[in-house]
């Protein structure tokens, strides 16, 4: 499955979201996945839990380490990707598609506006590296 990258919005903490009607689909960016290496464990929140922007909503573990996941836009969780809990390697193979993590509703449109586009995010990574 190919993702329309113009629809992908990103946070500096390397999570992304894609607007799908009244909900946001969220995950971690390809850059984050590359940094992590093999993802071997993922912990996601319960459905109906609510988060403010920047709250920790889960944990992603690679062989090397456990990293916290920060929610790029606040909201209420309506769905989690059960498949990715069973097969965390989906995050490595298709982080924007099959490797999505959660879907969120009741978000604040202003927070969506604040996020970087994927192109801006790539520039941000370049700058960070130097």
């Amino acid at each position, binding site marked *: 499955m190919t993702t329309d990258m113009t629809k992908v919005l990103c946070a500096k903490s*390397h999570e992304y979201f894609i607007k799908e009607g009244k909900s946001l689909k969220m995950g971690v960016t390809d850059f984050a996945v590359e940094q992590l290496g093999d993802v071997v464990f993922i912990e996601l929140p319960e459905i109906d839990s609510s988060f403010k922007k920047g709250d920790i909503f889960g944990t992603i573990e*690679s*062989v*090397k380490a456990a*990293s916290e996941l920060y929610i790029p836009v606040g909201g209420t969780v309506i769905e989690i990707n059960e498949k990715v809990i069973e097969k965390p390697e989906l995050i490595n193979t298709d982080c924007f598609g099959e490797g999505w993590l959660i879907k969120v509703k009741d978000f604040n449109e202003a927070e969506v506006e604040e996020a970087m586009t994927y192109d801006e995010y790539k520039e941000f990574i370049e700058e960070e590296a130097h």
Partner: protein
Amino acid sequence: MVMGNEKDLKKTALYEEHKKIGAKMVPFAGWEMPVQYANIIEEHLTVRNKAGLFDVSHMGQVFISGKDALNFLQKLVPQDISKLIRGKAVYTQLTNVEGGIIDDLIIYKLDEDKFLLIINASRIYEDVKWLLSNRKDFDVSIDNQSDNLSMIALQGPLASDILENIGLTKENQPKRFFIKKAKLLNIDVLLAATGYTGEDGFEIIVKNEEVCKLWVELLSKGEKFGLKPIGLAARDTLRLEAGLFLYGQDMTENTTPVEASLVWTISKDKKEDYLGKDKILSQINQKDESKRLVGFKMLDKSIPRHDYRIYINNEDSGVVTSGGVAPFIGENIGLGYINTNKPTTIGTKIDIMIREKLHPAEIVKRPFYVKK
């Protein structure tokens, strides 16, 4: 996620070679080291099934020589070094007067009055300081060659075949836990049949100026055997799966070899005094140590990590010192210390506190993995 950067790191003589083949470099013990070349799990399995090549040049090499070399070392470690025959190596620890572990190391007997100590990168400064401060009354020379020597490790079931293929017959290869001088591709090396992976293999000590040629040639000649370069991340999963300890995590100056469950490395009948002997023997005889290292495996899918707390019957009873995935055996495993007022026997059910929740685990036999 939070990711960091560090500067002012030392580089091994192989630094450019690592960059050339696309290694991801990370800081480790003050060095910029290759953490992975491709995929950590694949690298891990390559070493278990075929062979892998590691740059371990960050590790330290100190030569101890002189007429009191043996007596000097006898004072510093719980192993009885007088039993070492020429060319043989032994795993042991430098201990302080309280029995605390200053470093763990392998001592190689090169000659009657000459020994090589291979020590941890993070401890070179402390170890050399310790050796110097204890040399009084001994006629020894302490020669720290860590900056001049490189070390590469060739590990895995095909390691010996690869050496044979580059011209060193199996009869001329050192046996397990032996060391000898050798020529590899016309380069003078010290060849030791030791390692940190749980596999058979070799550690090759060579001058900095000659390591690149050896590394490149070994990788190229080893290719048909499936030889791959292996980074520090897989080195860590390999050593953990083999139940081997990492200094600074699984043991520190605040743990004795008895607490670290290293009694098997202590010569109980050693006559000579050594630093920490009273404490160590008392702990062996009285069994009065307050904590003990155990190995455990998780009973759910969660992953234990360094510094997580260990619970027994809902009571905080210890701490995880190393933990992670064990790709070959397919378990999530760890090492940790448990207070000895709690059971530490194999089969004991414990819990690991992970992100404020208890996850079930069980104390199991170490090593987790034993090669066939």
